């Protein structure tokens, strides 16, 4: 695991996993957590690659993936920008939360925990 | 300026910072050689040997210096690990070799003229010192120089050309290159005994000399071996 910083972004790289997947994942989380300002400009592929010390094609692939999910957009001659749509981000937030909830529910089901028990557990959890 | 001459200029580049050292060394060598030659000739003239033409003959020996320099120039690229820069220049190998060859010849001509001047100056000094200008004229001093120049310098060109041919074609024309070595060996066979005899028997007085058979056979073999070694060296390095 290695921490690498690009401008205001901080990434943790694990070279035993595909790098572009990690970058996409960490971008999505930062975005959902509201750590990235809406409509802000992403670093150029070149700068990103140089500072991360990774192949530029990995960065291109990451940006393409984010673009496909509507999380960023490429503007001709200007670069790549984070989406300025708040609804897009809240959808992303919901999507990530639902994903986490899904795996949480599956784990509890395997353990034989009932819905009522689970709800009780959640109510008792220290949410801070 | 054409690429070829740029390449030659590159080959001729001498270390800027060590020029002064080379100059010092050259002047020291000049002084020693000049002194030695002069004393030698003076003693020879005093003892009544009379004939100093053998000094001129030693020029033939310089011819072999050209061969050595050629291999040296190429080997330097490998010794100093610059060969990959040299061999991957975007020009044909032939052009690269030709440029190196020309630069070797220019350098050789420089060495040649330099030794020529020293030898001639020694002879003139010796005659003046012993006061024997009555026995020699200036034309005696420069007697046959042109022929020596042609045999030794052109001879060296010839040797160099053989070397280049062999280097260029060894891979494809192995058999041909062996045939190339034979005439070269023969030329060397005739030149070398002369050269050696003159060195060994300076008092021969210009009379006909019988050439020992072992020199006649030995020298072409030796030279051929030198060549094979040189080519082997190049091939080993480039694997081409």
């Amino acid at each position: 695991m290695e921490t690498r910083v690009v401008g205001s972004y901080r990434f943790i790289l694990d070279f035993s996993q595909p790098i572009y997947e990690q970058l996409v994942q960490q971008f999505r989380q930062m975005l959902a957590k509201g750590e990235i300002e809406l409509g802000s400009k992403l670093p150029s592929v070149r700068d990103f690659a140089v500072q991360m010390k990774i192949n530029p094609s990995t960065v291109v692939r990451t940006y393409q993936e984010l673009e496909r999910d509507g999380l960023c957009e490429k503007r001709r001659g200007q670069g790549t920008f984070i989406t300025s749509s708040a609804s897009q981000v809240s959808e992303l937030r919901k999507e990530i939360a639902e994903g986490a909830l899904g795996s949480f529910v599956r784990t509890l089901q395997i353990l034989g925990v009932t819905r009522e028990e689970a709800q009780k557990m959640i109510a008792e959890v220290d949410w801070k | 300026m054409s690429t070829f001459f740029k390449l030659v200029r590159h080959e001729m580049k001498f270390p800027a910072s060590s020029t002064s050292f080379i100059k010092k060394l050259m002047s020291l060598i000049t002084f020693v050689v000049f002194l030695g030659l002069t004393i030698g000739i003076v003693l020879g003239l005093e003892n009544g040997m009379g004939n100093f033409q053998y000094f001129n003959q030693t020029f033939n020996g310089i011819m072999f210096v050209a061969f050595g320099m050629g291999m040296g120039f190429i080997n330097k690229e490998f010794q100093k690990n610059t060969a990959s820069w040299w061999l991957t220049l975007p020009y044909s190998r032939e052009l690269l070799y030709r440029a190196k060859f020309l630069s070797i010849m220019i350098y050789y001509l420089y060495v040649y003229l330099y030794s020529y001047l020293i030898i001639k100056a020694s002879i003139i000094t010796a005659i003046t010192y012993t006061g024997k200008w009555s026995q020699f004229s200036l034309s005696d001093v420069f007697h046959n120089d042109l022929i020596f120049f042609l045999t030794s310098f052109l001879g060296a060109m010839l040797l160099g050309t053989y070397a280049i041919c062999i280097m260029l074609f060894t891979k494809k024309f192995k058999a041909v290159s062996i045939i190339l070595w034979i005439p070269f060996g023969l030329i060397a066979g005739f030149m070398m005994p002369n050269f050696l005899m003159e060195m060994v028997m300076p008092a021969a007085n210009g009379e006909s000399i019988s050439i020992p058979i072992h020199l006649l056979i030995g020298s072409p073999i030796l030279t051929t071996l030198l060549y094979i070694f040189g080519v082997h060296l190049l091939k080993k390095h480039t694997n081409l």
Partner: protein
Amino acid sequence: MMNAAIRFHGVGKSFKKKSVLDNISFTVPRGEVYGILGENGAGKSTMLKMMANLCLPDQGEIEVLGQKPSWELYQKIAYLSDRAKWYSDYTVGEALQYGKSFYPDFQMERAEELVEFFKLDRKLLGKEMSKGQEARLQFLLCFSRDVELMLLDEPFSGIDLITREKMIELIIESISERELTLVITTHEIDEVEGLLNRVSFVKDTKIVVEGEVEELRLKSGSLKDLYRGVYA
């Protein structure tokens, strides 16, 4: 296939009856950074020399940029040998002139920028350079050229950290800006872990693992893990 920068097909080579490479086949796609990893003496350098037309295979065929290796290729490729040294009598400034004189694709402006980038003194002589400075100059000469293919033999071995980082930066910048195929041999994985698109591991005259790096990560972990698996 036009997309292949380099193609080896059944290539074999022996030196003095000792086999160095045996039946090697692989393809380097254009525009990618290809790593040839392996321990010292595994035959990596020989593979690169073959691409650079400095060594001929005993068996098999090699294609570089769609043609058989020949000196004409030197117009399109830059090769940096692992043992290469710069001419001891040339200063940095004269080295730029050398580049301009002999490489038709030499970009003088770029070279001037790189002198600044690498913090080289224009008056520094080849023989006065440290190993790092010499590596910087040789890198500068390669990367000032507008070539399609670059072959770097153990570029990071024995080089100081700051120079290595600058070299990596220059490589990444160059491949961001134009289509350039790079083949790098190395046994130092840390430097190239994030850089390579494809990789092959050479062991005992053969390629034992070959593939796209991101896919290999999914299958068998990091290149370092793979390296350990192959050579330990």
